[in-house]
């Protein structure tokens, strides 16, 4: 049986997925070109401005950089901020 909401005012616990799988809000999808991405090219921790600017916290500081498309809302901030222009916003379903 589903647990009942006993809160008398609206509240949420900060957690992954608290607001639902928000990836389906996305219209444009950020795609990383690993031949341009600075940490990918240098093969060491560097830059990660996409991770820093991502308002949803769905970009990893790994090599290669990973984007969690289950929650990425497709805002495009990462593509805007990437100094190497390694991130392109592509239409959903038109994956490169």
């Amino acid at each position, binding site marked *: 049986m*589903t*647990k*009942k*909401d006993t*809160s*008398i*005012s*609206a*509240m*949420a*616990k*900060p*957690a*992954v*997925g*608290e*607001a*639902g799988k928000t990836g389906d809000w996305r219209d444009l999808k950020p795609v990383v070109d690993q031949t341009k991405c600075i940490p990918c090219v240098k093969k060491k921790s560097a830059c990660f401005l996409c991770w820093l600017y991502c308002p949803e916290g769905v970009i990893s500081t790994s090599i290669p950089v990973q984007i969690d498309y289950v929650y990425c809302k497709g805002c495009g901030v990462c593509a805007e901020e990437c100094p190497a222009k390694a991130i392109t916003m592509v239409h959903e379903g038109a994956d490169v």
Partner: protein
Amino acid sequence: MSDVHIMTGNTAAALGAKLCQVQVVAAYPITPQTSVTESLSQYIESGELRAEYIRVESEHTALTVCVSASTVGARAFTSTSSQGLLYMHEQLHWAAGSRLPIVMCCVNRGVGAPWTIFNDQQDSISQRDTGWIQIYCRDNQEIIDSVIQGYRIAEAVYVPVMICYDGFVMSHTMMPVDVPDAEMVSNYLPPYKPHTILCPEDPRNINPVLFPWRRADSEGVLCDGYMEMRYKLQKALDDSREVIKSTNQSFADTFGRDHGGMLWHYRTEDADLILTGMGSVANEATAAIDALREEGFKAGVIGIRVFRPFPKAEIRDAFKQAKAILVFEKAISYGNEGALCGELKAAFYGTDIRLPIHNYVVGLGGRDVKAREITEAVRASVGAIEAGDIEPNPMWLNCFTE
């Protein structure tokens, strides 16, 4: 053991808040409320009251400070009037929707335009639908007692309470007030327990956006949608009626003063003509009743103390013997009639109570409402009712309308 002092309504309100050991006070000066928070700032500065007085740049922020303080578990107090209350409007909804037991004194004053600093009740009546409990006081004793009752009610049902009393007529008028014993008050009023404890180990996102539909959270709890959450507020106000009455009763048992709970009576035992209203105007009507009784009218007063939640059942019971009702109101719902009058009529729907109801709009912007004028209005209405005038448009008492 009484401890009677002569004081203004504003001093009574400030003393009430002090007796409740409020922990955070935030307010912005506005006539005629200002001396409430002046007194509180003195209590805090002198160390008589251990609390934070937070200075703000506006009433909107004053209530926002109270919302924040109440959220983290502090007993918060503010007071305001008129434009200040209107400026708080958004945060009034926010406080009620967040279910925070803030107590505020609204020292009733008319609203602009045109400017007035004088008394009527248009300010708090305009905030009727914000989800606050509204209590209207008739004298300074009731102010101090209602602030104390207000915290007990608010913290029991997690709904904010507005204690309304008429500007100048009470706020600046000296009356004898029996000041309750501090220890008895702290026994009567248990410490405030917030409905959510905020702490870094168990963080919460307060008031996130709620969607039109219900939705499962990350732990699988099916969380309320916006409508479910708003229904909880409505239910809390509905259920607060019993709490307001029991709080009034326990106050009467403890301190020996019964303010009537939802409403109060004056010489209504055999009365078929009932005058009604809220606050000082209802009190003034009691003086009119004494004169009318001498003239042979079987008349009495039912004062409405609690306007929200509306005391529908109590009103149906209290007015069942009435043959005619005169409603005196220091406010009007423009384009209709007095809010109280309209709601009284609605309360009688579906009952056998079918009687003439006359509505008088009185005392706007501080115009005096004398017992003599109420008496004249009663005589005129009785004549008109005998001539078959059951439900005229609201009449503006003592006002040049030609």
